[in-house]
């Protein structure tokens, strides 16, 4: 990574002929800082690629301002940090992978999931947990507030995944899952000044601005929490409409090869609501409003 090269060598007249090195990079107001980056391999179960330390710390002969040096973690200490993950992986390997070896070996050759799922990054709402998706079943995108930007908004991580899932993997269903107490939606509803984009979160959740507008129009008399709940569901529908702005998605939906669904997980009551986009109905509404069918509520 960052490589530091000494730019000048000269004798230090003050210290009896000892060599002093002055480093040219990052000289700021006569203070010199060094950034050390090392990649250490601590835990491996399979010797593969070896990672070497990339930058050796250069020797300092001038007295540092303070005696404290940031300490670099010892190799032995570092291994404790990995124990938890190591045990979790080994548990997965023993109870799932080895018990279904043939299945995993087939999967390793190719994946053919029927679902693409777009869910929130929230730690409480992993679709594998709440809906029981097993390895190989769902191609999953997780982002803040499970949003889908429009085709016109340009390249983003979400639409690269959409393209791959729809055009390469040819999934049959796209399911967008929203949830209760969503921090991202709350941030959207709390935003005062929509122009202010000093934070990433605000720059991103603005994708859901239509949901906020329709929430304010329909539910402004409700409490803030209730408005957030309303917005969480509205946002799913907005994202469903945004999916239709992708030509290759709309084409497949029209032909009946792809179905678009919305889902809402309420983890306060532990209920799940699910609905499907009625394409023909929504088109008749000029694609400004989502018309739904096959609504179901599981509790």
């Amino acid at each position: 990574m960052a490589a530091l090269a000494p730019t000048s060598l000269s004798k230090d007249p003050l210290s009896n002929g000892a060599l002093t090195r002055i480093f040219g990079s990052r000289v700021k107001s006569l203070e010199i800082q060094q950034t050390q980056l090392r990649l250490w391999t601590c835990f491996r179960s399979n010797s593969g690629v070896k990672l070497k330390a990339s930058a050796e710390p250069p020797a300092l002969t001038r007295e540092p301002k303070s005696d404290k040096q940031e300490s670099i973690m010892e190799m032995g200490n570092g291994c404790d940090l990995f124990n938890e993950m190591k045990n979790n992986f080994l548990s997965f390997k023993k109870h799932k992978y080895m018990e279904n070896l043939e299945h995993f070996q087939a999967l390793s050759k190719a994946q053919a999931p029927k679902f693409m799922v777009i869910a929130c990054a929230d730690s409480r709402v992993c679709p594998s947990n709440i809906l029981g998706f097993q390895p190989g079943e769902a191609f999953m995108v997780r982002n803040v507030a499970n949003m889908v930007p429009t085709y016109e908004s340009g390249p983003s991580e979400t639409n690269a995944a959409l393209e791959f899932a729809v055009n390469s993997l040819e999934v049959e269903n796209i399911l967008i899952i929203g949830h209760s107490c969503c921090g991202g939606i709350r941030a959207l509803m709390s935003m005062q000044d929509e122009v202010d984009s000093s934070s990433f979160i605000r720059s991103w959740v603005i994708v859901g601005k239509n949901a906020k507008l329709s929430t304010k129009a329909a539910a402004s008399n409700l409490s803030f929490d209730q408005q957030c709940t309303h917005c969480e569901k509205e946002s799913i529908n907005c994202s469903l409409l945004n999916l239709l702005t992708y030509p290759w998605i709309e084409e497949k939906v029209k032909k009946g090869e792809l179905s678009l669904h919305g889902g809402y997980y309420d983890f306060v009551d532990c209920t799940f609501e699910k609905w499907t986009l009625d394409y023909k109905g929504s088109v008749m509404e000029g694609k400004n409003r989502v018309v739904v069918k096959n609504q179901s509520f599981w509790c």
Partner: protein
Amino acid sequence: MGSKSYEEAIEALKKLMSEKGELKASAAAKVDQITAELKTASSDGKPSDASVERLKEGFIYFKREKYEKNPALYAELAKGQSPKYMIVACSDSRVCPSHVLDMQPGEAFVVRNVANMVPPYDQTRYSGIGAAVEYAVLHLKVQEIVVIGHSACGGIKGLMSFPYDGTTSTDFIEDWVKIGMPAKTKVLADNRGEPLGVQCTCCEKEAVNVSLGNLLSYPFVRTGLVNKTLALKGGYYDFIKGTFELWSLQFALSAPLSVKDVATILHWKLY
């Protein structure tokens, strides 16, 4: 309530709506929910799609075997989350961290995208991933960010195969996986002549390191690392061999070196 007939109940609701029009939105949402619930429960409803039936079974299993058996945990989670990890994993259907690392609800804030990439700081182009990192580090105060790559990654294979000669064959994919270009450059230099499969495996791991490096371009990540409230790790799940590698990024700033005498420095330089 139970003794009222359906008609009486509807009449009462209509009366309330005419008195308190502001409740209409809330009432509409509740009626929708009841309708859906009743439709699901009714035995002569239309038979559902097999795919959707599968989801319903999955949810009922989760509710019965997990949610109802751990009421204390789920009650706490309903109030808020405080995950220790942020994980960046690939969208590939075979590598969900909930399976591979046995992550339970509440443990990990998980971002999944094609080829588990973290782009450099850019509020215009990459606000999505930026929002996730910002939320995780500043609001949730996660202790570790783990970027996990995996074997047979379609996104990395694309990166290694796309010509990047000015032509494009995709709307978005080529643009996205280009984030890993430094990894491709390094792998091609170090593994010239090797078959594509070998190069891809090397790139899958090197791309994780590129993402770890890109994380350093987020000021709040750097602050967390310097203050030792945050650590960065890279991982590689090989589902062909059934192995997992994990490594950490060591980051440190040494104490600054202060040189007080400008004239002396200039004097040395002229020497």
